[in-house]
């Protein structure tokens, strides 16, 4: 056994090169984007200084950071408002998307009848639908939720429907042979089989619900104390307060990245043992 263990020490050139390359790749995955990011920020700062660009057109990165700190109270309370709409609409998108998908999965007829409507809802730009929502819905939160939901639910619906329908034919026969009820087939076969598809849809929907929440707020044009980040951006735009505009923008994209990372982690944890997408490549 020791002979096998020692082979690590005497790798042939090809294997040694591979090991070295793997190590570089592992480090590079983090270092490279970080380095480029830092370089870009430095360049941004230099451009401001070299061209003496006024702060209300393009603030230096340091000023944006300072604003983030200075206006933290205002910005973070707005962030919370946006986050609330985002997560509520995402939750509703999951319930609505999975619920409709399960309903569609019960019968081809239901799917054939109603799926086109989901597509219509999806392809019509939300900004164009909003004036209608504005007429019919009074409550501000409900308006925003509805908007964000319309944007976010479709990827979950369409992915979960696809997943529920792509169960191995033999497995279906196996369940039939064992006298499985419709409910058992759904519970033990189709829902678990649809899980990777659903999680793929969830990752897309997470980003979309944030976009939906921000866009909805833009078109709703709310102002006042209980307004989200989008209102802060509009407001800052009117006042030529570019640093705050950048700070709010920074917070929105940071939120988006965090949502994506968290959902990716959840997806990985659920699928890591069995699904190809979450398995490390072996050899």
């Amino acid at each position: 056994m020791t002979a096998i263990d020692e082979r690590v020490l005497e790798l042939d050139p090809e294997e040694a090169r591979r090991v070295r390359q793997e190590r570089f790749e592992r480090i590079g995955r983090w270092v490279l984007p970080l380095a480029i990011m830092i370089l870009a920020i430095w360049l941004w700062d230099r451009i401001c200084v070299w061209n003496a660009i006024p702060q209300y057109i393009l603030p230096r990165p340091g000023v944006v950071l300072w604003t983030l700190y200075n206006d933290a109270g205002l910005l973070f309370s707005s962030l919370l408002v946006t986050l609330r709409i985002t997560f509520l609409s995402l939750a509703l998108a999951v319930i609505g998307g999975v619920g409709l998908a399960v309903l569609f999965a019960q019968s081809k007829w239901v799917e054939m009848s109603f799926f086109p409507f989901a597509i219509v809802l999806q392809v019509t730009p939300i900004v164009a639908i909003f004036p209608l929502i504005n007429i019919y819905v009074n409550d501000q939160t409900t308006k925003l939720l509805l908007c964000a939901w319309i944007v976010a639910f479709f990827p979950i619906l369409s992915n979960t429907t696809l997943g529920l329908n792509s169960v191995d034919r033999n497995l279906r026969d196996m369940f039939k042979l064992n006298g499985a009820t419709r409910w058992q087939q759904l519970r033990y076969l189709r829902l678990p089989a649809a899980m990777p598809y659903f999680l793929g849809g969830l990752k897309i929907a997470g980003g979309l619900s944030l976009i939906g929440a921000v866009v909805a707020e833009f078109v709703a044009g709310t102002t006042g104390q209980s307004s989200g980040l989008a209102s802060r951006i509009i407001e800052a735009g009117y006042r030529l307060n570019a640093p705050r505009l950048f700070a709010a923008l920074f917070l929105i994209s940071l939120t988006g990245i965090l949502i994506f990372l968290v959902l990716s982690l959840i997806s990985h944890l659920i699928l890591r043992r069995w699904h190809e997408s979450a398995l490390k490549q072996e050899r």
Partner: protein
Amino acid sequence: MIREKVAQAPASDVASTLLALRGVGKVFSNGVTALSDVNLTIREGDFLSLLGPSGCGKSTALRLIAGLSTPTSGVLDWRGGGTLDRSNIGFVFQEPTLLPWASVFDNVWLPLRLKGISRAKAAPAVTEMLARVHLTGFEDAVPRELSGGMKMRVSIARAMVTKPRVLLMDEPFAALDEITRFKLNNDLLELWQDERFTVVFVTHSVFESVFLSNRVVVMAARPGRVFDELAIEASYPRDEAFRTSPDYAALCRQASDVLVNAINSTAGAHHDGH
């Protein structure tokens, strides 16, 4: 349970008939005649192989027996008139067909779970069945972590955990390498000899069918039909010694000749038709 040694196929004894196919035919909606006028009697304790080229309807016959499909003509007569009880049938597919997200234990538990038996209550049966297919210690592994042969063992354990009277197998070992296939052949025979259930085994391998069965039913294609039947009158247990014996070689040649005739009969019919 007292049962006679069925090692030598019992002389056609009406009382031991399990299933009779009478004039069974199946025509698909695209006009293909998958099976035509199949008459076949399956006896209790038989290890019966359906041997034939692809397209001879052997898998269709198996699906009809399983009740996954219904015949266009003819009848399947269970025990002289009884209807089919699916809990008496185990089915092993060509692929392992396991739930990829569930552990080995949960995969074998599944048929019992679908009957409403809790994990704890099913545990003794599942554990015993896993031991029978030599998978003790792999309860918590997921299919992805197993080799092809081990996955097939799980599949067999799952089919057998309900103690079915009939085990239907649709080319279960076709995708395995020869060494693994031989081993699984031996283990399957061992299981069959201990439990004395009835096996209907679909294969396109002459060697496999002769090694395993007491009856080889050779089928021909276009239309799918029973061409001939061979009794393999070698005694059980059959082991590696049997696999290398002249008897086995002679039986294989015999079966091979019949299969060649079956294939030629199709070719002839094909040419005549044009």
